[in-house]
């Protein structure tokens, strides 16, 4: 291995990492949902919280992304929206990730 190969490898890794970072940020951005007028992220933490609270209560309060409280009166509907959004965005991230991996080989 010479220095040129190291440089090429490093450049490819930079491109891959940048593309991955961009796609991940895009995924997070697309996970944002507006529900009952408030802003939420369809991320793992929100899904787990809704799922846990809905086992104990028919309706409950949650904080949105700006720390404002909102009443969740139909937890099933909210959870369905969150999971759909989460999986839709992760699916598309996964397809792109696979494409990057192929390119990197």
């Amino acid at each position, binding site marked *: 291995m010479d220095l040129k190969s190291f440089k090429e490898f490093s*450049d490819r890794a*930079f*491109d891959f*990492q*940048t*593309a991955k*970072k*961009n796609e991940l*940020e*895009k995924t*997070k*951005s*697309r996970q*944002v*949902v*507006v529900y009952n*007028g*408030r*802003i*939420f*992220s369809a991320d793992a933490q929100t899904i787990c919280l809704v799922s846990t609270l809905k086992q104990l209560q028919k309706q409950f309060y949650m904080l949105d*992304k*700006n*720390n*404002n409280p909102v009443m969740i009166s139909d937890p099933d509907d909210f959870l369905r929206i969150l999971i759909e959004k989460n999986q839709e965005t992760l699916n598309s991230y996964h397809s792109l990730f696979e494409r990057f991996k192929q390119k990197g080989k």
Partner: protein
Amino acid sequence: MDKGVLLYCFDTKDTRYSDVAKKCISLVARNLKLPVTVVCNTEAKQNLLGVKGIDIVTCVPKQGNKRNYKGEQIDWFNQERFRAYEHSPYEQTLLMDCDFFCFSNELLKYFDSTYDFLCHDKVHDATGSNRILGKNECLLPIVWATVIYFRKTTKVKMIFEMVNYVKNNYKHFSNLYRIKFRNFRNDYAFAIALHQLNGMMPHKEFFAEKMFMIDQNTKVVKFLDNGIVFARDGKINSIEHIDIHVLDKECCYV
């Protein structure tokens, strides 16, 4: 009218922002499908007259400004934005820079929110080099005036009027908040106005996502259907289906 997009576009002797605005307008039409109102000077108006489906409001900028662009000081008209509340014919408005390209419809969801004023407080440098933000540029955390969602409420009217007050006393406020950047910048004017109106407490209501951005030294080499290819330090990268703020003003000629 109910919902729409408001753009400010002032051509200067150095930059034809109206060419950039044309690109922005076509993407708004395709991805947001909202009516567009453009506030522009007479030079830009000439170039925008042929663009379909937009309303044009002519405005003679009262004060000029200078900005550093690729190592040169160039003319810049950025001091009319505080009039957006008055200029907007819409109940719910997306106020955008004309170099912000909507490659998705993600902003539409905010029209369903109950918030009356939202902007970005975080950016994501799509080049991966994190060169957008400097350090210790101001005592206040910056907010980005690139995209602002607002409803017509008394509170929002007050925000825009406060921005005007900050603009008229910018020297005082830039000293007070120790802003490094000496020329008037809307980002700081809005950050200061929000801070002042929030009882000198940090404003905490923002868009949830980071704003994608590439700096002026990152060159756009190609426009895709719903994205761009850009080059920085000999490295090529692309981004698709996400809105992005592009500071390379020559991007519309590729």
